């Protein structure tokens, strides 16, 4: 650190430096997590393990719960609550310490309340999750290179497909709401931090604690039932299903906390003059996505809790011969599952519209309509879940109504396209790397959207359901759509987050590999689906051999593209060209504070006078905010990270 360090050490670490909780970090979390997990295992082994019906399920449940709780105690999730109950709240020193002041890189390993640290932590976690999920995808595609491949056993194959799916779903849910809604969004609205900085740190470390149980599934028999874990198959599964459920339950806590934090931050922390109508579209997208998550996620928690109960305690919510119903599982699951895909999609779409506006040098076209469209998508999305159940035989009379609600979603979705192309229309189109991904999004998402309307049509779904067509469709929307839009956002905000410019030359190589690899992979999968190949199969009819070979080769190119992009990101992060504060000459607030962003974000309070889209306007209308009044109450004025 710099010359300010001695000062900080005096004031911040000085007399209280020895306190127990200041020694907490990822390492103590890991240690306590393993310890409590082991204690749980030991107790369960010696008490309930002997019950042959559910002894091993209970043992795994107790072990995993011990891990999650232990890790969170160890990292410091409960510190504030415990100290508050003991009668001493945090003082200013503690707050500064918690915000990571003076701790250099070590703060990234700690329960740090600075939203920029949390955002960065999330970004790294997302990279790791994508890398794990991507590696699993490569194993799937290696197995599917040839019809009768024995690279993976059917059991391993099922386990890998399931965890690939869930790992990717978790990664995509947090890929924008984690890094960017945390790092960028508060700066965009002129806030000093999130509304609940400690809950913010909590949301991150709780997801971290959810990851080991997910990977542990491989060591206790593997999840056999896909990421949708349909009952009663999943009830039949071994203790891996318990690990899976613990992951979900833990993850839901994190998403809920994060969603509440995002919404309250936007409601209460906006800078002077930042009216709702002046908020960047990405802020709206974060709020709408976060709000939808608050609706969707509790159903997931409920479903998984019932699942654990069925398995470990002998309830029978989903077991038909004891009065339960698999359809109940399917309903509760998709009541979560469909809104969840829009929890994934909406925030990246907000990021995409920011990118389109900045690089077209034009306002977001039909800004209010875009907000309406995102709200409309979110609202409708809670009424469409049974389109995943057209072929289950459940409530055939509801096929029509669910076809209606599903097809209605294409109206607000269409408006999002209108806003995107309206922004491009007559724009100056500065084609930098983020914009490459922006164009790729449009292409992919059109294909994902059109194939979605085939699936919404009941007679057509009676052919396509459960087949590779569906797999190709949702990869076009989630990977080709949401993840590519998120990548556009990543390239766009990279200079602000890391303080360095991204190497666009390597980035463009990565782009072309991703763009081409993706089309090859999934167009071939559409063809497999057209021909009638079921999904989630470890081997297939030789009839489908050529297109599977092509799809696998495309997937290898695609993954290679991501690895090249990862290389560009990491190498630029480490020794890229130092970024100016506002490399894109954009107008929203995050570009109008220094890079690296100071603690509490602004040295001078912003006062917002227009929306951030004053491109091409004249006079004062071009200006988003003025800075001038001095900050009133920063915790450490002028201290930079």
């Amino acid at each position, binding site marked *: 650190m710099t010359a300010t360090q001695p000062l900080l050490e005096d004031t911040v670490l000085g007399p209280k430096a020895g306190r127990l909780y200041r020694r907490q970090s990822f390492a103590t979390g890991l240690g306590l997590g393993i310890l409590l997990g082991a204690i749980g295992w030991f107790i369960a082994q010696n008490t309930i393990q002997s019950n042959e019906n559910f002894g091993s399920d209970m043992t795994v449940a107790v072990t995993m719960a011990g891990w999650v709780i232990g890790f969170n105690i160890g990292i410091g999730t409960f510190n504030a609550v415990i100290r508050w109950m003991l009668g001493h709240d945090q003082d200013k020193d503690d707050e500064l310490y918690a915000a990571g002041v003076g701790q250099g890189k070590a703060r990234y390993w700690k329960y740090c309340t600075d939203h920029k640290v949390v955002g960065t932590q999330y970004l790294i976690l997302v990279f790791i999750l994508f890398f794990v999920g991507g590696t699993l995808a490569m194993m799937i595609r290696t197995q599917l290179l040839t019809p009768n491949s024995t690279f993976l056993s059917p059991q391993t194959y099922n386990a890998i497909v399931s965890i690939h799916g869930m790992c990717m779903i978790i990664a995509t849910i947090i890929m924008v709401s984690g890094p960017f809604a945390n790092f960028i969004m508060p700066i965009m609205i002129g806030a000093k931090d999130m509304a609940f900085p400690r809950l913010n740190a909590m949301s991150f470390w709780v997801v971290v604690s959810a990851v080991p149980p997910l990977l542990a599934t491989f060591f206790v028999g593997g999840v056999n039932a896909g990421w949708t874990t349909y009952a009663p*198959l999943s009830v039949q599964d071994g203790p891996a299903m318990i690990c899976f459920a613990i992951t979900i339950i833990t993850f839901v806590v994190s998403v809920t906390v994060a969603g509440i934090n995002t919404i309250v931050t936007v409601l209460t922390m906006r800078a002077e003059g930042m009216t709702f109508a002046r908020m960047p579209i990405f802020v709206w997208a974060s709020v709408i996505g976060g709000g939808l998550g608050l609706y969707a996620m509790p159903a997931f928690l409920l479903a998984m809790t019932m699942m654990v109960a069925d398995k470990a305690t002998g309830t029978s919510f989903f077991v*038909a011969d004891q009065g339960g119903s*698999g359809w109940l599982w399917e309903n509760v699951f998709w009541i979560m599952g469909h809104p969840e895909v829009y929890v994934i999609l909406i925030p990246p779409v907000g990021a995409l519209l920011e990118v389109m506006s900045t690089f077209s040098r034009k306002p977001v076209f039909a800004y209010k309509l875009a907000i309406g469209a995102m709200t409309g998508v979110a609202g409708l999305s809670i009424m469409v879940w049974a389109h995943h159940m057209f072929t*289950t035989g459940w409530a055939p009379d509801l096929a029509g109504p669910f076809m209606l609600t599903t097809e209605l979603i294409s109206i607000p979705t269409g408006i999002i396209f209108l806003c995107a192309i309206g922004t491009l229309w007559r724009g*100056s189109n500065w084609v930098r790397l983020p914009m490459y991904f922006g164009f790729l999004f449009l292409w992919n998402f059109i294909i994902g959207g059109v194939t979605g309307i085939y699936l919404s049509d009941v*007679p*057509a779904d009676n052919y396509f359901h459960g087949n590779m067509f569906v797999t190709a469709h949702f990869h076009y929307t989630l990977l080709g759509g949401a993840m590519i839009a998120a990548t556009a956002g990543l390239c766009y905000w990279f200079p602000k987050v890391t303080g360095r410019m991204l190497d666009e030359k390597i980035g463009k190589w990565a782009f072309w590999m991703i763009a081409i690899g993706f089309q090859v992979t999934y167009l071939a999968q559409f063809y497999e689906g057209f021909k009638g190949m079921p999904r989630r199969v470890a081997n297939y009819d030789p009839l489908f051999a050529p297109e599977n070979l092509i799809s696998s080769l495309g997937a290898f190119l695609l993954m290679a593209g991501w690895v090249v992009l990862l290389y560009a990101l990491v190498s630029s992060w480490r020794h890229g060209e130092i970024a100016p504060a506002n490399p894109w000459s954009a107008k929203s607030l995050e570009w109008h504070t220094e890079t690296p962003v100071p603690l509490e974000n602004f040295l001078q309070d912003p006062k917002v006078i227009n929306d951030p889209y*004053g491109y091409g306007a004249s006079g004062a209308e071009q200006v988003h905010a003025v800075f001038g009044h001095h900050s009133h109450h920063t915790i450490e004025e002028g201290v930079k990270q």
Partner: protein
Amino acid sequence: MSSDHQEVSNDSVLDDLAPGLDRSLHRQYIRGIFVLWFIMTVLGVLAGLYLTPILMPHMNSPEGRAAVKTVIVFTVAAAPVAALVCAVALYSLLHTRHRGSLDHPPADGPPLRGNALASGVWLITSTLLVVFLLFWGLTEWSAQQVVHADSLTINVIGQQWIWDYNLPAQTVRLPGGRELKIPKELALSKLNLPVDVPVTFNVTSKDVTHGFWPVNLGIQVDANPGQRTVIRTVPDRLGKFVVRCSQLCGLNHAYMYTQAQVVPDQDFQAWVQGGARGPILAVASSQNGSTK
């Protein structure tokens, strides 16, 4: 643009879309986008019409052909919208792309914050399209709900990881006064269907959920433990196909399939009469495209 009247109204639209810009320029833009849009729409329509039947297999029932037809119709209906998105994007890449140094941002574009006309047209068009899709789907769907007075009943039982078929003893009256007789209950491991005879599948499962999917019949329904689900069709083309499982059902889900074929009804009758032993006269595989 031939008449004066059209010229004027057209210009005011252009003014709306790009205020303060020289008209010949924005007319040029619209023309460019129109040309791209037109070409891509034609390509999309052609792909829908001619590619779909090549990509999808021959179907052995009206439901199967309805799925193919739906893909064709929806592709054609979506082509103009998809083409417009692509046309605007492509035009902005080809023509209005900033070509100078990419190190610095180009000059701002015009401050267009929206356009009531464009939004309105877009909204109305997409709403009409959705109404059409819905109308199409409901029409097809209700046509498939027709229950024939008499049909061949087949009980389908899924279990990890095989399909079993059970033909109860029954007499099915066929159009034209003939009858199809199943003298005694038959348990079968392959699916044989008489052509042009309505068939009702009663589907259930002994363990977990499976998906009963006779691929080239274009219908499917889950086999749920403790439930009976029903689907119907009239196989109307001879040919072989495969019954697959469309719902992940555990370890050997991938291998849960049986051969199936649609055969002439006399052959079917003779085979049943003979106790359903041995194969029925084999017909050509419909996966390879041959039909009756």
